[in-house]
């Protein structure tokens, strides 16, 4: 199922070879090899075990419950005893204009936050890399990391206050240039910018860590020879740093595309109003209202399953495109 626990995302070669080699040997020999292998490497397997157990218990076992998407589920009867209803829940969903709207909103919000949110941590990492004064750099990093550690509820409180028409800082500013206060959080057209903006503000700093780590891994001799050749810092960034961290960027992008259908719905639930459902209601908030609040677990499971299938197709597509274009991929 897994090869090496630390097989870094992005390695494309090497894993398959030993397997084919071993398969060619006769049965007995292979067994001896296996026992030998375990005797030698058992520590690695012990280290691997917790992760595998976690996967089995919390990701594979729950998949068994997915069948309730096709059943008339009763908690008391349980998963096995509940009667099958086929595609009924999916029909209900796709006949519901609010579900279609939620799918559309999910894709739009995700795509916009990918377009506007994905480059920001990379730019931040490149900027940090150019700061030479160590203390100043660490101070800046701490400041941009901090919002990541604030709970979503508090973020929502900050956003509501900042955009309040009477006391909010945003309306105070636009008041200075003579614009009437705007009640941002009830305006459908403002919901997405506010949501995506606050998401970037909260996470950009922390997500830049992985790119900083990638930058730190670039071979310094490349820069040294560039300096000897008289390259400017700008040229070094474009010709050395960015190409060197490109595999990391692409892997992160594939992961982000895989999560495209997963919008951080806690913040949406805290920020949206019936007045802004039009642009704010996503699949997860729809599931929450329709499925969990009114106890329709089977319908919620159907919506969740649909969501997962779309996400799976997206990540496979992104992976194969990336494999073909840049020869970097998750698998």
């Amino acid at each position, binding site marked *: 199922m897994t090869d090496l626990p630390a097989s870094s995302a992005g390695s494309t070669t090497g894993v398959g070879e030993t397997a084919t080699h071993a398969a060619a040997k006769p049965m007995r020999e292979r067994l001896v090899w296996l026992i030998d292998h375990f005797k030698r490497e058992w520590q690695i397997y012990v280290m691997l075990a917790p992760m595998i157990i976690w996967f089995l218990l919390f990701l594979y076992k729950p998949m068994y419950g997915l069948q309730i998407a096709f059943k008339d589920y*009763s*908690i*008391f*009867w*349980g998963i096995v005893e509940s009667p099958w209803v086929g595609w009924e829940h999916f029909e*209900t969903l796709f006949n*519901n*204009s*609010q579900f279609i709207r939620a799918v559309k909103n999910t894709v739009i919000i995700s795509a916009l936050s990918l377009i506007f949110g994905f480059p920001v941590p990379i730019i931040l990492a490149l900027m940090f890399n150019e700061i030479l004064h160590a203390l100043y750099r660490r101070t800046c990093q701490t400041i941009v990391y901090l919002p990541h550690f604030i709970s979503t509820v508090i973020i929502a409180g900050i956003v*509501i206050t900042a955009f*309040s*028409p*009477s006391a909010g800082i945003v309306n105070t500013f636009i008041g200075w240039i003579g614009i009437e206060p705007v*009640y941002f*959080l*009830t305006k459908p057209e403002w919901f997405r910018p506010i949501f995506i903006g606050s998401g970037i503000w909260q996470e950009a700093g922390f997500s830049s860590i992985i790119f900083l780590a990638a930058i730190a891994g670039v071979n310094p001799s490349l820069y040294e020879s560039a300096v000897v050749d008289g390259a400017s810092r700008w040229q070094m960034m474009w010709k050395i740093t960015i190409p060197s961290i490109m595999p990391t960027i692409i892997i992160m992008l594939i992961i982000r595309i895989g999560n495209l259908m997963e919008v951080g719905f806690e913040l949406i639930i805290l920020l949206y*109003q*019936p*007045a802004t*459902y*039009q642009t704010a*209601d996503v699949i997860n908030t729809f599931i929450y*209202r*329709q499925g969990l*609040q*009114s*106890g*329709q677990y089977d*319908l919620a499971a159907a919506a969740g399953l649909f969501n997962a299938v779309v996400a799976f197709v997206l990540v496979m597509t992104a992976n194969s495109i990336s494999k073909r274009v840049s020869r970097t991929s998750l698998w």
Partner: protein
Amino acid sequence: MRHLTLASVLLTSMAVTTPAIADGHLMIVDEPLELTIHMHHKRYPSYNEDWPVEQEARRLTNIHLKNATVGSNTDNSGEAINLLLASGKLPDIIGTSRIKDVVNQYGPQGAFMPLNDLIEEHAPHLKAFFEKRPDIKAAISAADGNMYYIPYLPDGKYGRAYFIRYDWLDKLGLDLPQNVDEVKAVLEAFRDGDPNGNGLKDEVPYFARQWEELIRLVTLWDGRSSGSDTYHDFYVDSGQIKHPYAGEGYRDGIKNLTEWYAEGLIDPEVFTRGSSAREYLLSENLGGMTHDWFASTSGYNRLSSEIGGFVFKAFAPPASISGKRIEEHRRIPIKPDGWAIGGTNKHPVETIKYFDFWFSPEGRNIVNFGVEGVHWTMEDGKAIFTDAILGTGRPVNSQLYELGAQLHARGYFQDYGYEIQWSNEFALEGIALYDEGDYLIDQFLGVAFNKDEQAVYDKYWPSVRTYMLERQQAWILGTGDVEADWDAYMADLDKMGLNDVLAAMQSAYNRQYGG
């Protein structure tokens, strides 16, 4: 404190010898019998054998409850009961908030025991109660006609009321508004007349902790906002189930409230200010009028020590455009909370007798007030709290929860006498005013669906409700015009299935209340 403890010990020893209770006539079994219980409520996520009320009940009935609560780590009772059901092993007694839908859905499947015959044969007090209140019996019955739970029955009628700054009215030389036009004039005066005297136009004439309390004002145009103490609920109009957000009074109300909102008579941030609105706007001397609970809102008169002359009191509901004065909100006489008997209980007779104990005069006093002689004494036939409760200066209800009294995850009949003893004088004055005018209207007590009706409701209602609320807020905020949009809105509601939902509710209602 030591003094108090000593007093309690003395009083307890007296209580043991009080003959009326100690003669054993409340004993259910000769040998102590243990029953298991799941008891979950967000204030007390598991059952505690050490609650004084429980010890007293055990002593009197010989029934000994053992805690078997599932999901004590969550404060969401719905989650806890679902966990319990999914585990497949039910204890003898299941008590929780929001039990009604659960027992009505899973009772007929065998998870809970039907109570009708048990009550008929073994529970004289419950039987007498339901004979006196057939409406309550109808309201808690499931679609198959059986009762599966004994509810918590709140006492006292009054919930919310209209509150206004009396001192602001005096300052501006205005009288209490008697009708909808006068309300508008008063709110305009609050907006323009600088009643808080700080020279700024910062007053918020009408505010609300829940934005739904803004919609409540449609009753001033003969509309409705809800049929029960739950927001956006259906209501009954001479035997017909209707939804308030599909009525013409509602349309007219929304049209006028949109104007009020645009003119600044309503808190511009009413949709996002949230639960702290009342605390903030009153203590900052900004808010003028609201619609909120009697007891907690009257409590804000303590601000008079900081804000000179501060008086925030209830006033009678203003007359609507047709001259009717109604207060739409009241305490519902029956809550969806309570307890039920698990389908695998081996001692159903003893259990129903135990449920019945809490409806006996003795049991009812214990569950409402605590232990006699310690927490209350009988004076002129009424239970009166002792200093052990009233002398501590802490909120009486939270003290009672700690004793195991007034727990809503148990089926019992509340006694309003418990609350009146510690209500604020302003609240009592307001309640007397509302009592005199008889402004309350009947409430919709809900229906129990059969399987087909439930399927229709589940399929259409959540989306219809979402759509109604979207349009409601959009109109108030000035997007679209309610009069111009109304026909299209009604057509959309029909297309989305509102009429199917109403038909399902009507058939359930007719079956249940014999309409």
